[in-house]
């Protein structure tokens, strides 16, 4: 993959839901909504496309835990953020065998959210102590939980596709 457009094209083929966002406002170029089943294929695609894993993080929503994967590319500016909702049993397939750096990021996410990464080689606590496995500090309490709509820029998404140019003036 040589440019952002070819990345989008590659995703469209899979198909993966990809949306181009304004970098000046969001700090990344592509936002992606993934199904858990697509995760490994997605990672594999990025691996062949010479992306690197920037981070993995979680997001506790009323509907459950979302895990976000951010990738970027050394060769051209293309930072992408992928959201995956965890499976019903609070688990996701690991990508630690595709991006070895994911090993620690997944362990961290397990520490903070309790998300199980299936087939992870070594899912022991990383940052927390061994006996704090049940702490899951970043899970929010019931009243603080919000759903996805509450943390999404509603008005932006409506205008996103038709006219990205308009958005700049608003900012």
């Amino acid at each position: 993959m040589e440019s952002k457009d070819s990345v989008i094209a590659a995703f469209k083929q899979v198909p993966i839901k990809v949306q181009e966002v304004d970098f000046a406002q969001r700090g990344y170029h592509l936002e992606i909504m993934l199904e858990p089943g697509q995760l490994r294929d997605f990672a594999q695609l990025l691996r062949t496309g010479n992306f690197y894993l920037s981070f993995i993080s979680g997001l506790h929503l009323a509907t459950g835990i979302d895990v976000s994967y951010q990738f970027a590319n050394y060769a051209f500016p293309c930072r992408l953020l992928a959201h995956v909702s965890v499976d019903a049993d609070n688990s996701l397939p690991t990508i630690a065998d595709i991006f070895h750096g994911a090993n620690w990021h997944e362990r961290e996410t397990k520490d903070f959210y309790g998300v199980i990464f299936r087939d992870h080689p070594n899912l022991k606590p990383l940052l927390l102590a061994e006996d704090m496995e049940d702490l899951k500090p970043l899970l929010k309490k019931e009243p603080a939980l919000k759903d996805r709509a509450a943390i999404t820029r509603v008005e932006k998404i409506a205008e996103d596709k038709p006219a990205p140019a308009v958005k700049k003036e608003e900012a």
Partner: protein
Amino acid sequence: MTTIAEQGEHRYVLNMGPQHPSTHGVLRVILEMEGEYVMDPQPVLGYGHRMHEKMAESRPWPNFLPNAARMDYLSALIYNHGYVGVVERLAGIEATPRAEYIRVITSELNRLQSHLLWLGVLVLDLGAFTPIMYTFEDREKILDILEDVTGSRLTYCYMRVGGVVRDIDDKFVEGTREFIKWQRSRMPMYDKLVTGNIIFRKRIEQIGEFSPDLARRYGLTGPVLRGTGIPYDIRRAEPYSVYPEFDFEIPTETTGDCMAAYLVRVREIEQSLRILEQALDKLPDGPAMAKVPKKLKLPAGDACYAVESPRGELVYHLTGDGSDTPYRMKIRVPSFSNLSLLPELCRGMLLSDLCACMGSLDLVIPEIDR
């Protein structure tokens, strides 16, 4: 000597850290050794874990400003920069041009002092005591300059959303210009004393070599990555602040060993000096603080802000929900990914080389633990 039956008779475990001179803080590495060869190094993190991300979620966003300085104490201003950057990006605020220049100037000074400290510490890891004193002498000058304007020497809390807390004065500009001259005059000495030292070269050349692909698998960023020949620097790749207005190079080396990372950092010192020079020349007049609503609420939505810390790519990912408290704040720290490479990189190495490798990765442990 304790032997581990299942790993073969003559392997033993050496516990390096959490208190060890060359783990640079409270990092513990469990080394499975065979004689002096490290067969399996496993870092153990979390001794300095403070859960900054939870702190960010549990209080209004301005209260996180001091925290930003306490993750990586060597590049506190760059962490400042990233944090105010992400809030500005999410809230749609723009800092004044002068403030952006001041941010860049202070950030680069911060980067310089971090690189200087690293230079001394790396050589100290290799057993030479003197260069760290010389680099500290230079570093003191930076700290003095920064102290005058920010009020602190290590954990700065200088930048605010919309600008910086205090405008710089002529004394600062003069001091910085003087420092640039001084630092340039010092570099030939380091060249002779460190780079040209035969023992030093033999200790770090062809040690800890890795390929661009390995870097990609582990998400390496920063000087270590540039040592493999990839000119990836957030300041160029995803320009932020006023960096596009400066003319500077991204030093790269091709060998990917510790020496390459060393050379890249040393040349980066010169590039930072160049940026400083240009920024001081172009410094615009005007207020150092934009008009920002007093009670700023974070709008719903998320934003990333990536900056180039001395150790690599630092990303703040902030999710707001319309209140003044972040819903989620993720901080991607460069050393975390850089260190995760260690088990693969240092397998089968001599203990001394492991120290050299960890020195060249330039680890700051509180940043990894957060």
